[in-house]
């Protein structure tokens, strides 16, 4: 079942056309990868789908319902969760509190002013942390986590909103090979549980090892889309991407 659909999305930054008529769809339980060289427009696409940025034309629908106004909080409430290419966590909180905060937001309980939030959704938050492999880090200051754990924490925060769709902008970037694999396995496990996953990644092993489908962006256009084997053999992709300059990392 298709959960997230984008039709003919275009956006420009000044004179620079960052995305032109990009369409895609992600179904529940599916893992879709978008690849493309640096500056291809992957993060921009995530920003459109996450509500961080307004498209100049085109349409985004979730379960057939159009998300008209770019509003990240509204997108989140309708079931789209995401992580950012540059990891962001709530630096003044503990790991546990980061997840609790997202859960409070999800359950619309942030307008409570007096009762301490310490116990709010504690078991649930600990559970999410455990799923992301951070069970033993719950009490630490979020800012003091090692980089791989920060990536995991951001994933945990995104999961705290119980999303139907996950947008993962380079979830495994900057990780060493074993950690990258662990992260991708974790993501695959989430997809297996029925979440629709759209991720971007420069590491081709992760892409071809985990993606069900791949969308190739180049200079803001979709130049190819299909299964990993389709893409591997697509001459145009080889030309502009795999053939020419090898993707870095």
């Amino acid at each position: 079942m298709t959960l997230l659909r984008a039709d003919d999305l275009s956006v420009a930054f000044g004179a620079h056309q960052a995305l032109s008529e990009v369409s895609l769809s992600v179904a529940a339980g599916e893992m879709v990868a978008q690849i493309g060289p640096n500056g291809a427009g992957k993060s921009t696409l995530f920003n459109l789908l996450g509500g961080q940025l307004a498209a100049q034309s085109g349409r985004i629908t979730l379960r057939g319902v159009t998300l008209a106004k770019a509003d990240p909080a509204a997108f989140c409430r309708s079931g789209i969760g995401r992580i950012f290419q540059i990891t962001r966590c709530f630096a003044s909180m503990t790991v546990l509190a980061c997840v609790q905060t997202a859960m409070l937001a999800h359950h619309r309980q942030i307008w409570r002013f007096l009762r301490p939030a310490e116990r709010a959704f504690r078991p649930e938050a600990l559970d999410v942390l455990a799923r992301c492999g951070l069970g033993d880090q719950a009490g630490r200051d979020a800012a003091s986590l090692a980089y791989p754990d920060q990536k995991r924490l951001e994933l945990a925060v995104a999961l705290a909103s119980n999303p139907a769709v996950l947008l993962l902008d380079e979830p495994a970037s900057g990780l060493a090979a074993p950690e990258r694999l662990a992260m991708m396995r974790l993501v695959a496990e989430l997809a297996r549980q029925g979440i629709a996953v759209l991720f971007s990644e420069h590491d081709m092993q992760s892409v071809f090892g985990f993606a069900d489908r791949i969308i190739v962006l180049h200079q803001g256009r979709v130049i190819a889309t299909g299964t990993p084997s389709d893409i591997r053999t697509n001459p145009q992709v080889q030309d502009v991407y795999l053939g020419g300059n090898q993707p870095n990392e």
Partner: protein
Amino acid sequence: MSFALQALTGLAGASSLFLVACGLSVIFGVTRVVNFAHGSLFMLGAYLGWSLLRLLPHTPWGFGLGVAGAAIGVAAIGAVLEMAVLRRLYAAPELLQLLATFALVLIIQDCVQAIWGPAELSLPRPPFLRASITILGGRFPRYDLWLIMAGPLVLGLLHLLFARTRFGMVVRAATENRALVAAFGIDQRRLFTLVFSLGAGLAGLGGALSLPDGSANIGLDLRSITDAFVVVVVGGMGSIAGAYLAAVLIGVLQSLGLVWLPQGSLVLVFVIMAAVLVIRPQGLLGRAGSETGQPDRPTPMRAASAGGRIAFAVLVCALALAGSLAGPFWLAVLTEAVIAVLFAASLHVMLGPGGMISFGHAAWFGIGAYAAGLAATSLAAPLPISLLAAPVAAGLIALLIGQVVVRLSGVALAMLTLAFAQIAWAVAVQWTQLTGGDDGILGIWPGLTPRGYFLLCLAVCAIGTALLRQTLFAPFGLALRAARDAPLRAAASGLPIARLRLAAFVLSGTAAGLSGGLSAFAKGSVFPASLAIDRSVDALSMVLLGGVQSVSGPVIGALAYTGLFDTLLLASSHWRLWLGCALLALVLIRPQGLAGRGAGRAA
């Protein structure tokens, strides 16, 4: 014709404004230091200029030489200040530099008075500075024509410096990306010293050039600093051409405004600034996002431990005990101190967890004070009702003003709060029928003994402060901090950033209003001074002194600041000097604040 002459006069004013402001813009662009002492450097320029020009021959050459000498002198002073003070603070939380430069303001004020005396010093004008020409049907000072040209000239020279020289290229690179400069192996310390000294020299130049139209006097620092900030912010932080454009806009509008609406002289500048910021938060030529993002790098904040709670309870008991033993004066000081605690705690909500700097927090304090005072006098309301009126009035107005304020961030937000506070201040001064104008509202006494009232204040402030603390660890507090720590992440998790910030703004204003109401009854009076910039600076100093990221910071900061202030005020006629030195010492020794965690000085 008279319109044109008025506009031309405005251009001369614009040049003066630009000369004050461009140095500030240069300094901010590169070092990101919000240099409160810029007005003091301008004042030093005027005094140094006066001393030099008295000795030099009264010819155009002598004048030029003296002005250049003053500029160089102030540049040297700037370099010394940078090396002695600011350099140690680049690694410290951003706002601390504000406190340090505020300390410099106090110190320089006292030093200037000690060296040059309190009297106003005017420079006899030789004929060439006195001459006028007839244009547009009126007489126009020739010196002002030179001034009109001096603005674009300085702008052009700065442009050449930044566009054509290696130094300028490095400075521009530093403005864009500080890490880049370090990566290229450029000595950042020397660069910052040079830039600060250049900015200081420009301030000195402006000060010396202001002499023929006026005099060197002790008020010049504060007179020029708000102007400089307004121009820089309206122009776009760090944009020198923007500063010139802003100066022209403000200078000309101000000059014309004097004809159309002379009563508006107190607020015109601030109304212009507010209008520009609401329409274009980054300023006329500023780039979006070029203003500083957050007041501070967030650091972990922990709920008060059991020990912390006991310490707070002990403190409250100790204050109650002190209050029952103190004589009338120390009782008044204690009352003021506990009110200051609530006031500081209210600002802390905005500044710390809310991530919004306020240069105009006095507005809420003053609105609360006036609301309580008016309720008690005009409506003859009983004490509880009058005290309730204070937070309600402040909260409602904060709700209104907050709608526009929370959309901004960084220094622009801070300046918008300042603009609003100044407008509120002008209303208090000029709406005489309601507020009593400068004479204020008198005879607001609580109908309790001073000791009884102190205990009431202690109870209200302790509970109020404790409740504010509590909110920071309640769901709302977590959400608010999330919105500050990582706004993108927070929004992607479904947090309504703008509404959270608005709520923090209103909460902060409400609590400040309550403290203002309490203070009206403590002093028996309300004056426009309760809305003035000094009061906002007091609040900032208290919070910064205590430590922005610490829960107990505002409590300790407020007690320390009021204690320090009152002791020094009584002990010495040079209290400004000593207060400045004390603040400076604290900032350098404990950059994380008195209550902040972790020891050690900033790198």
